[in-house]
């Protein structure tokens, strides 16, 4: 628990996080005031569709924060102190998982800021405060993307830490690629097109329904993410054990 606290503090109390927090805050306001305020696919700006669209627009920047957290795992200082951490009687797999959990909590923290901005915007401009249904788009949009990119980040960071930085612009691009609903990880085309194909409900708003294929797609992304995380963490300990074995030999 103590270790988890240290890891979390390492993630959250640094210049990057503060910088990214400011960017996230400004970007959130910009997306809200520029695009979402008009309403997605003719729905209300505070409908679940528009809110989901907002989250999918925010995802690139949130995922870039996540990738920065992942890059800390492979930073130069980290590589240098690895030899010391490896000599502690701690299970390396557990430590890896613990770190991933700390990263996820960091991601949740920055997401809370972004979601907070939107709720504040709704409350101030539309006097709308009924946020009870908003959890579904949050879970549907943020969690699978978080797990998937955490998994990818952990794996490619092991191949070369610089790849994590190269992944960042790709994350931005991914938000603009048209994709079928089931494969649409960010959900931007899903939130934009789906309401147009649905019948109008009360007050001219189509009800928020998620087709089965989208659920399957999201679950697949999440599952792949979890698999990659576990694989990355386990694989790491194998490699470190090998280096352990070699090291005494070379020093002799």
């Amino acid at each position, binding site marked *: 628990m103590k270790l988890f606290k240290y890891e979390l503090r390492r993630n959250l109390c640094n210049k990057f996080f503060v910088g990214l927090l400011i960017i996230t805050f400004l970007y959130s306001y910009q997306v809200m005031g520029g695009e979402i305020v008009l*309403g997605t696919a003719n729905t209300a700006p505070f409908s679940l569709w528009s809110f989901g669209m907002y989250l999918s627009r925010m995802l690139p920047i949130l995922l870039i924060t996540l990738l920065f957290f992942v890059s800390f795992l492979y930073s130069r200082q980290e590589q240098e102190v690895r030899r010391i951490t490896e000599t502690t009687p701690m299970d390396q797999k557990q430590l890896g998982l613990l770190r991933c959990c700390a990263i996820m909590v960091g991601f949740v923290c920055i997401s809370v800021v972004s979601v907070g901005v939107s709720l504040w915007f709704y409350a101030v401009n539309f006097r709308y405060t009924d946020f009870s249904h908003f959890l579904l788009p949050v879970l549907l949009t943020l969690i699978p993307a978080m797990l998937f990119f955490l998994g990818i980040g952990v794996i490619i960071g092991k191949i070369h830490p610089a790849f994590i930085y190269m992944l960042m612009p790709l994350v931005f691009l991914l938000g603009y690629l048209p994709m079928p609903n089931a494969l649409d990880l960010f959900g931007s085309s899903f939130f934009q097109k789906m309401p147009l194909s649905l019948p109008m409900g009360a007050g001219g708003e189509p009800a928020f329904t998620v087709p089965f294929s989208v659920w399957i797609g999201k679950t697949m992304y999440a599952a792949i993410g979890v698999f990659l995380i576990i694989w990355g963490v386990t694989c790491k300990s194998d490699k470190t054990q090998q280096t352990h074995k070699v090291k005494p030999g070379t020093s002799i």
Partner: protein
Amino acid sequence: MSFFSYIKVETSRIFQSKSTWLVMVLTLLCPLIGYSVHQTAVTATTASFVLANPVLAGGLGGGILFALLALYEFDRVYKYHTDALTESITSPLLLGGAKLISLLAAALVTTVAASVLYLPYTVYRMGVVFNFLEYLDCFFILMLPSLWLSILATTAFYQMIRRVDLSFVLFAVFTFFSLSPWAESEYILRWINPLVPGLSDDFSNGIIFRTAVYNRLFWLSILSGIWFLGLLCVRNYRKGLFGSFTHNVRKAYLLELSIAFLCFGVYLYHAEPYIDHSPAKIYGSGVGGTQTIVAMDSPYAEENSNLTLVSTQLETDIEASRSRLKSTAVYQLKNSSGKPQECILQINPGYTIDHITANGEAVSFTDKKNDHEHMKDIAVSLPSEEEIRLEVRYEGYPKIWSETRRHLSGHKIEKDYVELGGIHLRPVINASDEGAGVTGEITLPSELELISSGKTAQVIQVNTDGTKTWRIDDPSGSASLFAGNYVKKELSGSVAPIYFYYSQKHENKMEKLEIEQILENTITYCTNQFGPLGYTEVEPFSILETAGHMFGGGSSGNLNIMDESHFSEDGFINFHSGATIADSISTEIIQTWWLQGAMVMDAENSDWTNGGLSVYAAYRMAKEMYGEGYAIENHVKEWEKAWSNMNRNFYVRHPEYANILPEKYIADLQVEFSTIRTHAGMALKVYKAAQLIGEDKMDAVLTELYQNGGTEHPPFITWHDFLNACGLKEEELNIDEAI
């Protein structure tokens, strides 16, 4: 080793590095993205699609890639702990400079390669409109400096904080700033994605490149200042930031250079020459109900009733190659008060007044420099004499209105294109001017053809310096000028001659798209159906192709203006008025009939304008020419789509939310809705009326309204005039039930 030897060594090293080659190849691929994804330039011209978008994508992508490369290269010696070795041989400051220059060279080589690589495809796609100089401008003004500025910024950050990750975050923030809406409208702030609202195919894009060069100069000097400051922070003798700085600052010239660059940058920002300083205003308001109210204070100075303007005479020398003009305006005034008077001259803020005389004597004047609504006021003291000959000498160039700075659109003087009129051509005086016309002698490069509102412009003199002097005469007093490499064609179908002017470069496309045929068909239809326009051979009606920077169309006296995107395959299609280029052009022409032939207006129903009638008439014409199926599919269905889409919008369904929301968020949406109401909505109502009374009867109703005018004075045709002529009640034309 001298500094130049270091540069040589560093440059050859950098070109042997695999990572450099990777970055160069990836940068070369970036423009490919611009062909499809990165749609920065929006005006629908071929140059926008195959030149502007790819080059801008190349600048953005290449900028980010070169920033990564620069960080990697600068961090190498510290990463592999070879700094102790290199610093024992050479000064880290010298090495920093050499590395920077080698990186800049790599960026230059990449841009040259890109310009060679994309040349064949661009030439192939653009055909006759391809302009090699503008092609080079695109790569070396828009793309290359983006890469250079990225390198300068990241290396400056790295030298200061010496951490790769943190420098990258700073660079990301800096890039984000350039891409964000805070910099969106400010051409001077957008360092990685220069402002290119669109490239014209047929006319010069001078203003785009002039603003881009200014932007590049500003950022190069600011970032060079920061870079030299960063150089002073380069760590020396294992000292920290402040220790190294105090050591490095002994080289006083570095600090001086840094301050000089920064000061120059600040000066450039303050002396920004292309945009005026008119305060911002939001036009349009509340969608509450069905009306959009446009609030705007009158920008014009109050009329001085003691002064009467008899005539205005211009002597203007347009120096197209310098994008400036020198001019003298002579006003014949009558002062009925017998006392000295003060009058106000209003002119585009880009001009400066050199000299003003009244009856040959210099008079005092004050340039108030109070930019507002694209003009400034100049107060002039006039003598008490009854007859006054006021002579005003001025020079300069028209500045862009701050409201339209996002599109860099406005009146302009380019080396192959001139567009001037009103306060952008000459000072307008606040005297009562009933019936006072404008005459003038305009000198232009001889290859340009001048088209002016009023009487047809005539060449009166061919000068020895490669210019021609034209005589213009506009009895209405509006005086709009256009000049370019125009082809002039006379269109048939009307009683008085109608001329069509278009760019020579567009000749093939005009023939391919059969634009002349479309125009002639429309003119014939309107003349037969409604009656002729009231123009004569002396003051003929002219249709004019203008540069794409002006957006859309309009009319100025007897000139009907359409921008070049109307005449291109990738062209501008206004979905409110039909689905094809032909429909869109026809609607524009028909609008002239309902704007100048007859006036359509209703104080109680702001949706009732010439728009709806013209859109309906375009449908009728299409039905006669191509059959009912085509007309319904391409016209009526399009209006219905626009109308029902608008009605599905949240703010139309719930106007109460539009009322509580701050205006700025949905101002654009309201303007769009207003156009849909006046065009598609009204056309649907007229269409429904035609279904009720029969289309032939509707044709007769429109003809009668056109020829006899309305009941309100001056002869405005009101909504009720229309309903009465049809014999229908407003309730019968409810279109929401029909859809």
